[in-house]
């Protein structure tokens, strides 16, 4: 094994230089953000081979989904990539809408875009600051955490929860955004660019950080495509694939933004791509907010599509109108039949293309649901990427690939 490392020296059999040691990185190691295992074969500090193990927090979401009516599956998607759960929620709602052939109003689309881009910012912010933590710069992480808090406060205003949001419903949102939500959004938009700039000042041109990340854990565009990489990790390798542009959903075609692309696909490029994407997200949110403000009068009150079979009626109507009561009962008890069909819908998640493959045979629950989870795919490449790297490189590679255990195991 160690002839990768000592190509010109031939060592006798059984000499101590040829011996390698095995190190279990995980399942409970601070660098595995979540629970998964790497069995590393080390020659000193260099990694000869790495073997990844998955399944430590496998919760059988796909199987659970087969027993649940559509609206109850949203809570499962929360727990995939919990750093950007609103994107997962929205992706799932849009998949259902695709199956049910529902057209959502423009205002709903724009509100969704705001929420999804906020989620993307919080996801990238965590990922990038965690790269900082794993290189040893803890302060950056703790400093930016309070600005993720601003995003969480906006979620809170809209849906009442923070981490596993369960935000939105099939067809729209559970209620209209209130004024406080918009005020908080404005506050965030005003404060965040300054913080992001500061964050970049702390790390982007930091000599030690650059030395640590440039050339660490690189992957070529071709290999990345072969593995099925998507999202920031693929874009860092130089492929400008973005679901938001290539198959727009939720009216993304109405927005003007750029796709940042890297070159080498190493940790530094991934870091830069994520940072630039945060700036682009800010641009999108700004545009979306302007578009939302343009709706006036009755249009400004629209926050869901008109699909009484799937969208819970207002509580007052449930008490006063018979149809509303019936729909309420049917939806809550999960007794709405869904049309038979097969759909695939994907959204640009925080980590990459998050796909939902839904087959329905016409019953009340999906016949089969599959999540295309980008983290699972990234982790497959981990062994190849980390081979021959130093132990410290392997650790920042793991955090900059943004492998999140919840999404990986599903």
């Amino acid at each position, binding site marked *: 094994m160690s002839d990768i490392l000592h190509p010109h020296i031939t060592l006798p059999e059984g000499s101590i230089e040829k011996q390698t040691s095995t190190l279990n990185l995980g399942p409970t190691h*601070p660098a595995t953000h979540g629970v998964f295992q790497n069995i590393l074969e080390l020659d000193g500090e260099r990694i000869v081979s790495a073997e990844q193990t998955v399944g430590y927090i496998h919760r059988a979401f796909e199987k659970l989904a087969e027993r649940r009516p559509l609206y109850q599956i949203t809570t499962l998607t929360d727990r995939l990539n919990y750093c950007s759960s609103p994107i997962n929620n929205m992706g799932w709602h849009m998949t259902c809408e695709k199956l049910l052939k529902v057209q959502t109003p423009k205002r709903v689309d724009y509100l969704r875009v705001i929420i999804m881009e906020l989620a993307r910012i919080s996801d990238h912010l965590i990922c990038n600051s965690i790269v900082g933590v794993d290189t040893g710069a803890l*302060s950056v992480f703790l400093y930016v955490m309070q600005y993720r808090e601003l995003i969480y406060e906006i979620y809170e205003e809209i849906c009442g929860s923070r981490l596993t949001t369960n935000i939105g419903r099939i067809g729209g949102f559970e209620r209209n955004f209130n004024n406080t939500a918009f005020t908080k959004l404005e506050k965030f938009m005003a404060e965040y660019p300054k913080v992001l700039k500061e964050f970049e000042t702390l790390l982007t041109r930091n000599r030690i950080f650059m*030395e640590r990340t440039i050339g660490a854990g690189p992957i070529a565009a071709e290999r990345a495509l072969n593995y099925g990489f998507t999202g920031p990790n693929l874009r860092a390798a130089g492929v400008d694939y973005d679901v938001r542009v290539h198959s727009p959903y939720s009216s993304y075609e109405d927005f003007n933004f750029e796709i940042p692309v890297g070159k080498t696909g190493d940790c530094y490029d991934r870091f830069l791509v994520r940072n630039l994407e945060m700036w682009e997200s800010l641009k999108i949110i700004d545009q979306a907010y302007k578009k939302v403000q343009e709706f006036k009068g009755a249009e400004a009150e629209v926050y869901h599509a008109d699909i009484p079979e799937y969208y819970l009626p207002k509580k007052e109507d449930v008490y006063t109108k018979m149809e509303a009561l019936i729909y309420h009962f049917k939806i809550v008890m999960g007794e709405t039949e869904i049309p038979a069909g097969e759909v695939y819908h994907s959204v640009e998640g925080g980590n990459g293309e998050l796909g939902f493959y839904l087959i329905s045979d016409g019953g009340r629950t999906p016949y089969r649901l599959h999540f295309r989870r980008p983290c699972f795919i990234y982790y497959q490449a981990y062994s190849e990427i980390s081979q021959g790297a130093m132990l410290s490189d392997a650790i920042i590679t793991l955090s900059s690939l943004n492998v999140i255990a919840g999404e990986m195991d599903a």
Partner: protein
Amino acid sequence: MILLTLDWAFIIEKLILIAIVVSASLVIAMYATYAERKVAAVMQDRRGPNRAGPFGLLQPLADGMKLFFKEEIIPNSSNKFLFIMGPALAMLTAMMTSAVVPWGNKLEIFGTTVSLQIADINIGILYVFGVVSLGVYGIMIGGWASNNKFSLLAALRGASQVISYELAMGLSLIALLMMTGSLSLKTIVEEQMKGGWGGILGWNIWYQPLGFLIFFVCAMAECNRAPFDLPEAESELNMGYHQEYSSMKLGFYLFSEYINMFISCAIITTLFFGGYDMPFIDESSMSVNMAALIGIVAFMAKIFFFIFVFMWIRWTLPRFRYDQLMNLGWKGLIPLALANMLITGAVILARQGF
């Protein structure tokens, strides 16, 4: 009969001084942990410890109490003797260095003159280096005896790091020693007090800026502080060499780190910043005791400033990778230190007129 011939007054005086210095450095190390948490909190927009006592001032005591009452765990597969040796050595070497630091000039108590230095030995700096290089045994023995792969990796990192940075550290000081011509720390301080502009211009930092930079970086590496905290890189090796330790044995390791930091700052101050020299004050015009007190205050102020700089750096910079650390040490600092030595030598020769 030999006991009677000993100078008992001298021994008692030194014992009292030792007790004072040791307890003072313990207390300062204790409050360095508090300061570290407060500094970190300020830098991260947090509040830091503020529950135990006013402004959280009793927090170090609470931490110490907690460590004492924790269960003592010695892993079954460890080498028990060495496992206990590790933290003991780390603590011992950390405390020993303070013996040669001149904490102030001298006091006059009941008509006797008391020097504020435990031992003014003529090889002061050599002694410091000797003791500091022993310090790595604490890390190595502790890390190896734990029988844990993370600890072992950390021990190896620590050993190679400390050894390679000691070289550059020593070399950076040679230039200084060529200037002062003495290894005694007391002499070095007294040399520096003679400069102009209130004494400030006499400080070695003006003559040896490069030497100071190299020494400062190496001191940080010797203390295993970020960005050189590879032996305990918490995101890579969990806790590094003290991963398997619990209770006060862990406390000893953590404590020795802070004592080391305190002593390093004291040495930096002594060598480059005039030690107990208070600038713009003429000590000769006041009473000896007053002058000594002012000296101690000045010395402590300088030390605390450097401790703050250490913390500031720790909470700002990311950590090096192992090979980059070695590159910096062997390919960066050692050649620089050698160049510094050559330049200093040339200048000294030129001034003497070859």
